[in-house]
């Protein structure tokens, strides 16, 4: 596992723990409020029923107390309430769905065969033990809903956070690992040729080849380093934008690439001059490399569009797919190296989109389309 992936896993785990801790802290008081509300209501109801029962029995004629009590309590049969009345340990009356043994003066929850009940155990002034049992399915459902909602919200937020963190770390680390990989080849070659020059008995020709490779590969390294710096700046987006003279930009590029011809129908772009110059330079460089020696490369600026056209042999479908979506590829492609992802970055920083397509004569056309340009 790579270091950033380890960091990712650890920080996700830590964040999830903290998140669940917070969810617990928020949910626990809500649950206790639900529980307290239910028990208070049950206690009040029990007091009313017990008081009424006591009075009813007091007023009943002697010997008729038991039938009166029965009639009175059966009145509650449809409301989900059940009772038991006992004299010392001898049960006089019971409608309980299950056997319950609770000391007088206690109240709470009990669960029987998956159902939740609220009980209040009381002793009437007349000396009877009175047990009130209420079916608490509604409270049970409410508690379950609260716990489930908290767990679901927590998991959803944790997943969103994990995804966001992954994308962030992946995007930061991908260019770095690509560059590290890109640097390995020139480093291997330079080290190898230097050792060969030191240790081996070489002919003049071989010596020249080894030294040329070292020079060539060190150019490649400094190229990577320069691109890394530009990539860094393009990401920061710290440079303030200003009007850039397109004519001047193109002319500057023609001085490096004499085969370039240009047409300007869009005099100023609003952007960063250094970054735009690097973008056009990269596009032209690739176009010149793809063209037969001496063939013209055309630059065109039309309102909101910059285009670079070459008359080379064109790109394969696979290469076109790569240059249009370099971020989808894990390995850097030979058709563009680091330059293509960089060009996309610069275009993006200017609110523009870079697309490659096949030209009418089989060459390649690179188009930068500006979507939110301020000047046109």
């Amino acid at each position, binding site marked *: 596992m790579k270091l950033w992936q380890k960091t990712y896993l650890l920080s996700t785990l830590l964040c999830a723990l903290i998140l669940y801790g917070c969810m617990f802290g928020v949910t626990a008081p809500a649950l206790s409020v639900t529980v307290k509300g239910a028990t208070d209501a049950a206690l009040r109801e029990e007091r009313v029923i017990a008081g009424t029962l006591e009075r009813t029995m007091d007023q009943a004629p002697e010997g008729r107390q038991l039938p009166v009590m029965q009639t009175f309590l059966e009145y509650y049969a449809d409301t989900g309430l059940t009772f038991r009345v006992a004299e010392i340990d001898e049960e006089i009356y019971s409608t309980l769905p299950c056997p319950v043994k609770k000391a007088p003066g206690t109240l709470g929850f009990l669960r029987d065969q998956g159902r939740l009940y609220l009980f209040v155990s009381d002793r009437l002034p007349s000396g009877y033990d009175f047990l009130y049992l209420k079916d608490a399915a509604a409270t049970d459902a409410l508690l379950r809903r609260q716990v489930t909602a908290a767990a679901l919200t927590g998991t959803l937020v944790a997943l969103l956070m994990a995804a966001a963190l992954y994308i962030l770390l992946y995007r930061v680390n991908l260019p770095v690992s690509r560059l590290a990989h890109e640097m390995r080849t020139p480093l291997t*070659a330079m080290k*190898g040729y230097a050792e060969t020059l030191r240790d*081996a008995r070489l002919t003049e020709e071989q010596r020249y080849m080894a030294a040329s490779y070292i020079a060539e590969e060190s150019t490649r390294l400094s190229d990577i380093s320069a691109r890394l710096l530009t990539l860094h700046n393009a990401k920061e987006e710290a440079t303030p934008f200003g009007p850039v003279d397109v004519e001047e930009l193109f002319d500057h590029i023609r001085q490096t690439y004499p085969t370039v011809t240009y047409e300007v129908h869009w005099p100023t772009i609003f952007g960063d001059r250094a970054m735009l110059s690097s973008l056009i330079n990269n596009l032209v460089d690739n176009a010149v490399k793809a063209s037969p020696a001496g063939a013209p490369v055309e630059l065109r600026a039309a309102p909101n569009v910059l285009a670079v056209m070459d008359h080379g042999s064109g790109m394969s479908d696979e290469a076109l797919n790569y240059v249009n979506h370099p971020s989808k590829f894990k390995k850097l492609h030979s058709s563009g190296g680091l330059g293509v992802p960089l060009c996309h970055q610069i275009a993006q920083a200017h609110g523009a989109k870079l697309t490659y397509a096949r030209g009418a004569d089989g060459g390649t056309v690179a188009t930068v389309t500006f979507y939110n340009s301020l000047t046109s």
Partner: protein
Amino acid sequence: MAKILIVEDEKAINDLLKLNLEMVGHQCVPALTGKEAIRAAGEQGFDLMLLDVMLPDMEGFAVMEKVRDVPTIFLTARGATTDKVRGFGLGADDYIVKPFEVAELLARVQAVLRRTHREEKEYTIGDLTIRWDAHEVFQNGERVELTPQEFTLLHILIENRNVCLSRQKLLSEAWGTDFLGESRTVDVHIQKLRRKLKLEDHIKTIYKNGYRFEE
């Protein structure tokens, strides 16, 4: 002398491998893509294949599956443990991590050639003939007695012909890494070899570096 197929898409590194392997007397065929390598292996036999894991057209391992019966050393990036496991699973003989040291590369190539019995059996230079498996040295048809240590030293020098080996490298290769000798020991043995086999013109002292066997 062995015939080696070099499969590596970076021309700079392909040329580097070729240059060094040809220097010590091997014959090399370069291939820049997997397809090229498979075609070359189908047309001619090889004693060894050096194979880059990351090729533009296919994975190095896919080449290995197609090219059977050729001992293979694969080239991989540092820390790519899965590559190593996969390579050995497919029957690779060794691996080299990029960036590598040229001397280490040559040593590993020799080790694999020896293990797969594809190393050279005999070496002749001038009036000198050496039979490696019999540990015998003949000068003008007459047998010359060498101590085992002198023989090993000569073997290492000739295996790495045209490449300079430092005294430290010679010590670790010929005497074993745990030998705590002084580099003076190397000088003494080199003098003896030069005198016994009249190799003064072939075993060269290289300034600030060590010794080199030159053909």
